[in-house]
């Protein structure tokens, strides 16, 4: 599937459907789809899968900072040169997104990473074991959040707890 074709198909998909979305073309090969509610995520991903559009390249978490009070979660789907990005904003306090693992099994490592690094609860994720972080790091420290500093992380790890 060629880049242009993929982009137009994806555009069609999100515009024809009833989801409240906002699309954007920041670069010629990219299509950004901003979802307004978390509930739309799974149907859209299923829709993308049904028309065999792209594979999940990554899930990126972005902390917009304590001032904005939001986390942004980006799901990148790639086909040839086209990158379709689904963006969701969730509040930093009790952030929750549904898990994609039922639809895309390979989302598991990304979601586990998202969970431990940003403190985004992924509902429906079966394996919630830590993937990267050491076991002696407290459960409520999320290193990739902007307000967590290096000192905080190193102080929360204690050698005695091994």
């Amino acid at each position, binding site marked *: 599937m060629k*880049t242009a074709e993929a982009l137009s198909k994806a555009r069609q998909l999100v515009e024809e459907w009833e989801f409240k979305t906002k699309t954007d073309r*920041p*670069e010629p*090969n*990219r299509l950004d789809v901003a979802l307004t509610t978390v509930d739309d995520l799974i149907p859209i991903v299923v829709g993308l899968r049904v028309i065999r559009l792209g*594979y*999940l*390249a*990554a899930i*990126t978490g*972005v*902390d917009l900072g304590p001032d904005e009070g939001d986390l942004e979660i*980006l799901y*990148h789907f*790639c086909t*040839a*040169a086209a*990158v379709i*990005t689904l963006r969701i904003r969730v509040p930093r306090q009790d952030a929750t997104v549904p898990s994609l693992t039922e639809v*895309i*099994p*390979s989302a*598991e*490592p*990304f979601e586990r*990473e998202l969970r431990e*690094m940003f403190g985004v609860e992924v509902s429906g994720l079966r394996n919630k*074991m*830590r*993937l*990267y*972080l*050491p076991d002696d*790091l407290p459960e409520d420290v999320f*290193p*990739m959040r*902007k307000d967590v500093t*290096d*000192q905080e*992380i*190193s102080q929360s*790890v204690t*050698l005695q707890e091994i």
Partner: protein
Amino acid sequence: MSEVVKKKSFTIPIGPQHPALKEPEHFLISVDGEIVTDAVVRLGYAHRGIEKAVESRTWVQSLYMLERICGICSHIHAMAFCLGVEQLAGVEVPPRAQAIRVIVAEIERIHSHLLWLGVAAHEAGFDTLFMYSWRDREKIMDLLEGFSGNRVNYSVNVLGGVKFNIDDAQETAIREAISFLEERTHHYLHIVTKDAMFLQRTRGIGVMTRSQAEVLGTVGPTARASNVYRDIRVEAPYAVYDKYPARIVMDNRGDLEARFFVRITELFESYRLILEILETLPDGDLTIRMPRRIKAGETISRVEAPRGELFYFIKSNGSDTPERIRARTPTICNMMSVVKLLVGHQLADVPMILVGIDPCFSCNDRMVVLNRDRKIEKLMTWEALRQYGIDYYKRRSA
């Protein structure tokens, strides 16, 4: 029922320290006799917190930080970052610089694949092939040393171009090395596809069908060995790959032999590309001036690392430090396929299947705690460590 089975299973830990792994990572393999019944992976032993660390560094400093995500594919990380940042800044890099970047990237691919061939042969217990492929890899290391001055972490990239030029002496050296390696590669291809003893360990082992490969989200040579059409150089040409198109190498068998075949055949493709670019290397500057502050915005930079697609998400807030950089390395995509593939195979095949995806755990583990500012008393002296060990065992035995 499953509870009973669980209790009976005999688990073998592979890692964090194990001769089969050249980097620390932990696999817990449950076996029934010699047959693997379950496999669990725990990552994070090589975490350095790079993604967090770059948020407090300038764009220039971040380049070197990101280059050190991986020791083997360092150039491609830096290249992906540079391409992304240059795109954000709206800077057009001179064609000669782009061409040199691609040449180094292909040399790095050769380096990586030869290294992998050696490691894979070693896992199979074929140390002779290991020694020879690493001896020949030395030619590539010398080439990179002569070109950039370092054998690893060559730091060829700067934001806005490359640091080093390819002059006539370098060109001759590259041509000589490639003609030597081309002959050797034919020999290695002959070995891995013809040697009966070696094929016993690779043919039909770790078979991943095309649909499995797609579902498990594999990338790079691992996916191509399962006949998945996935190569960023071909699908989304970056740098000068649109002028010098790469040919995709695929195989439909999906077993270890296919992964050997794909990687070694890719070497020929790299040789051809390098020679072709050298032939028509564009003249011009090596660098263009880059602003210190990068315009606010987001970009995605995808390149084909030796192990597969490397995905960079770069977000700038207009200052001289990045807002967020996400590096999705190919190994993390392929790692889950290993855990699935291991089940049902013999314990003896575990290292082979693991190495079949060419895992790079350093790439995998790039984030997390950076203890730069850890207080001095947290650093244990040898005496303290010893005392800690004694106490620990006392407590345990008590």
